[in-house]
């Protein structure tokens, strides 16, 4: 039972470590899925917007963590 629990915990932990990071990624993807294809954006701009949003989320997450931890 403990082995199964450890494996399930590990499985969940694969995707959820920092809840705010995971939540922001999911929210951005849902927004992108609902909105980006409908704007009729010029070629490549939708893909770039998807990438730029994800990079912004990542950088914000690490900077928040770096600021929050004692040096």
């Amino acid at each position, binding site marked *: 039972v*403990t*082995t199964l629990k*450890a*494996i399930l915990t*590990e*499985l969940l932990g*694969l*995707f*959820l*470590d*920092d809840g705010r*990071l*995971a939540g922001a*990624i*999911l929210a951005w*993807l849902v927004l*992108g*899925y609902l909105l*980006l*294809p409908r704007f009729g954006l010029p*070629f*490549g701009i*939708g*893909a770039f917007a*998807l*990438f730029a949003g*994800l*990079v912004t*989320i*990542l*950088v914000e*997450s*690490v*900077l928040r*963590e*770096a*600021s929050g*931890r004692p*040096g």
Partner: protein
Amino acid sequence: MLHTFSCALAAFAASLVEFVEALTIVLAVGAVRGWRGAIGGAAAALLVLGAVIGIFGPALTRIRLGAVHLVLGTLLLLFGMRWLRKAILRAAGVIPLNDEAASYARQTAALQDAGRAAVAWDKLALATAFKITMVEGIEVVFIVIAIGAGGPGLLLPASFGAAMALAVVILLGVALHRPVATIPENTLKFGVGVLLSAFGTFWVGEGMRLAWPGGDLSLALLVAGYLAAALGAVSLCRSRRRAGA
């Protein structure tokens, strides 16, 4: 061709990191409790993990590609960006680096405290080696399946990359008989985080029917973009911590 190579590379590097972590504990089990239980437990877990890939990998390739790209791309993004975030924080000195030698010493002490078993098949050794190989191997299985289901013919290179990593780690274990503490683990995790995040972004974009300039070649641009952003984030974290000290 680009996908085939990058799939195999991502699976190899990610699997190498996970198998090295498992090897550390399996070596500790073998040294303290005996090799029969350690090898038996690890081998049983590898069989289970191989069966999971054999069952779910081909099954996923039969689902509509757009849906697979969207779902597995999202999971790859969650997984890859989690790795990349930790690698950035470790590279910037915000959180400590993983120490395999310390992990080996902790596990050895814990197993010695448990007392010796007089039977041929030591249950504690079997269970410990099985558990650690399953726990670390689950990540390998996810990576192989997620990358392999991204397109026709990608499961094979992804599985090949993971198998090569396993072979390298087994050879290292046999040769060294001690934890592999010298591999640049965080550099590998940094690279794998970049690759998986790029794959995840590319496939989510495909699932959303967004147009990628240059088609498959834009995967290389995504890798370059994530790498530049991650290196920039390391510098930003360092300077922010210096300013706050």
